[in-house]
């Protein structure tokens, strides 16, 4: 029995319908949330690995405290994006799986090792030598994962992923993600998460510890600048369609907006306006992803898979959108509670330190 042909025209260039656009928007929103929140957690791992100087221990402790309560929720944004992608654009998800098994498997192993090692390290009852080793694994995996994800994302725009007439990938598993451009995007993703983490940690730290992370943020900003400067010119060759759209098409504003946010964040950091620096860093990340999405439009995978071609039936996308909207009614207050408890001022309604049980 051969594979029944399901999607004959996954490269259909017809205008996507409204539910496809909204579903794509939902995926971008989830990816921004993941890049900012989950990304900062990977960046935390990077700074854990590179904790240096007289306050190395305090740096690690702060990172662990900052990540501890929230990182699992942050991680779910990725699962959410994946699930919306495979429900609303199943053919695109299938092509991604066929085309990029190597970088995705690397990222998955990185995700698993990062999460597990962080949890094992937080198991304070275990011997400290074991926990130190887990800390190293946590840091290493935090390096590999954003790099792999960035390279995989770049491959989708490369044009190197080709399909046969049945819509099945026939290019090599090595295609697209090992080019200088893709590796450059991987490096850019890594420096960006390191920058995000350092700016966020400035908000949580005080005194000299804050200066430590400010210096690290400045270093990461330089890394972002260098990787972007090297990678961007490669784009004209490696991802011509993306480049054309970024320089001449609808995505043009983002080529200005993203660096503007970046520079604003850097200046704010320099003059120690830490909250502003963090907000601008978020804006920069969001601008990069929205710009990437706008430049890719109408392709999900250039030039073979489009939004309209890979779209599930409109009623399916509508069900997801309605479900997502309804789910937000639960999710937003829950997230608010989580972040206000651990990242902000304690709301008096719920928290009463006086009534809380004493620390064991």
């Amino acid at each position, binding site marked *: 029995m051969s594979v029944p042909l399901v999607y004959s025209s996954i490269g259909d260039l017809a205008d996507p319908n409204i539910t496809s656009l909204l579903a794509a928007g939902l995926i971008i929103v989830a990816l921004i949330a993941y890049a900012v929140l989950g990304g900062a957690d990977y960046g935390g791992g990077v700074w854990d690995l590179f904790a240096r100087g007289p306050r190395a221990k305090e740096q690690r402790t702060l990172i662990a405290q900052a990540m501890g309560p929230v990182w699992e929720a942050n991680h779910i944004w990725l699962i959410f994006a994946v699930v919306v992608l495979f429900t609303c654009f199943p053919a695109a998800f299938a092509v991604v799986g066929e085309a990029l098994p190597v970088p995705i498997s690397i990222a998955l192993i990185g995700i698993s090792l990062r999460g597990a090692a962080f949890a094992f390290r937080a198991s304070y009852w275990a011997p400290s030598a074991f926990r130190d080793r887990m800390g190293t694994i946590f840091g290493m995996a935090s390096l590999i994962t954003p790099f792999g994800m960035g390279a995989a994302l770049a491959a989708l725009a490369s044009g190197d992923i080709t399909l046969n007439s049945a819509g099945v990938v026939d290019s090599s598993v090595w295609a697209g993600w090992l080019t200088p451009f893709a590796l450059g995007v991987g490096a850019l993703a890594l420096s960006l998460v390191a920058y995000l983490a350092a700016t966020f940690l400035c908000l949580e730290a005080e005194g000299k510890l804050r200066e430590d992370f400010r210096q690290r943020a400045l270093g990461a900003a330089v890394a972002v600048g260098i990787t972007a400067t090297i990678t961007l010119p490669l784009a004209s060759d490696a991802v011509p369609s993306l480049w054309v759209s970024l320089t001449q098409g609808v995505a043009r504003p983002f080529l200005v907006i993203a660096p503007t946010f970046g520079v604003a964040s850097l200046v704010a950091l320099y003059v120690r306006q830490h909250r502003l620096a963090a907000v601008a860093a978020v804006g920069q990340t969001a601008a990069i992803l929205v710009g990437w999405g706008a430049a890719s439009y109408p392709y999900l995978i250039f030039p073979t898979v489009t939004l309209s071609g890979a779209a599930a039936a409109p009623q399916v996308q509508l069900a997801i959108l309605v479900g997502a909207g309804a789910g937000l009614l*639960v999710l937003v207050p829950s997230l608010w509670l989580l972040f206000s408890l651990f990242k902000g001022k304690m709301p008096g309604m719920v928290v009463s330190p006086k009534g809380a049980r004493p620390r064991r």
Partner: protein
Amino acid sequence: MDELLFARAQMGLSLIFHIVFSVLGMALPVLIVGVEWKSLRDPKGPWLALARTWSKAMAVLFVIGAVSGTALSMEFGLLWPTFMRQAGGVIGLPFALEGYAFFVEAIFLGIYVYGWDRLTPRAHWLVGIPIAISGMVSGAFITIVNAWMNAPVGFETIAGPNGPTIDQSSADPISAMLSPMVITQVPHVMLSALVAVGGGVAAVYAWAWLKNRTSAYNRAGMLAGTVMFSIAIPLQFISGHLSTVKIYDEQPSKFAAAEGILETGPNQPLHLPFGLEIPGLTSFLINFDTSTVVTGLNDIPSTDLPEKPELVHLAFQLMVGSGLLMTAAAALFWASVLRRRRAGKRLELPTNRLILWLLVLSGPAGFLAVETGWMVTEYGRQPWVIRGFLTTADAVTKQPGIAGTFIAFMVLYAALGIVLIWVLLRLRTEHPDTRMGA
């Protein structure tokens, strides 16, 4: 091994690994909410210490479940791209809803685990409730997807080159969530989690009890676990019976394989291990009539059967056998409690070594039942991935190199499993009562 077998091996390995943590994520919060509630009413008792210790274990277990679940969500595309092409649009909705439930679980878990010192006792207990609910609900959503794979509904079919295929444009995501198998599979999975986790927890403390560490702490742990699985297990037998009857109606190939029915006919015996059988009982159990005709493996086309149907039968027997062992443990436990009570003692737990050993064995037995039950439903569905519409052979990726990722994930899960067990054993000895044998 060919690529298909490697892909099946990798998926099977990932699910065998992940299901342990799914079950723990569903039922451990229920138990923790229960003991923390006891701690509110009895603050001087051992309940708070239990809840605190378990919440540490839950935090680590949840992480392993979350990362292996992330891997699974991508493995659908890495290993079975054509399954996603066909199923993504039809049955993606419960996946997305599961994503939400999982989100809520992760959020409140963060608050719960890190909030012991930040919340009032009552607020902290309340935070546990959404964890328990969303854990159970996410398990239900995933089981809904599985039910659809066993008995797909919610779409029109169109003629394909090799028989009818799914017409994507007709997908009705709400109806797809109402596969006929849902009504039996979902309760069966939820109960299996309560049984396995209750048994697992009871086993840990029964072991300590066996070693004469009869502290109030260990007593409370054993009691909590045993109460949970003792309540769930009679319901699980009813649910199991209803599931089997449903499988008889919907999936005759799986029924014949699971029950080991070789030839079609009435008056089918119930096959027990070692070639023993009870005449007519399989037919009788379907609708209380021994003349019920059951389709045997001889009348099922080979295209509807897994390579080795006898493995489905073996898994089915192991599942039922594990349940019977746990039933015996629970029955003897409560009989002993009742007898002691009659003798005028307060709620006094058994010291009989046979009962304690049965409880210790209930730990692995509950999880064995989960794994073998999963095997019955998944391996019993082979060679189909969407029964009647798509085979695993057609769904598998055409890319080479799955042997490599299979080995990589095998090493990863072996390492995670070993380190996790080691860390949890350390946690067990961390509590003063268990360590000192007070």
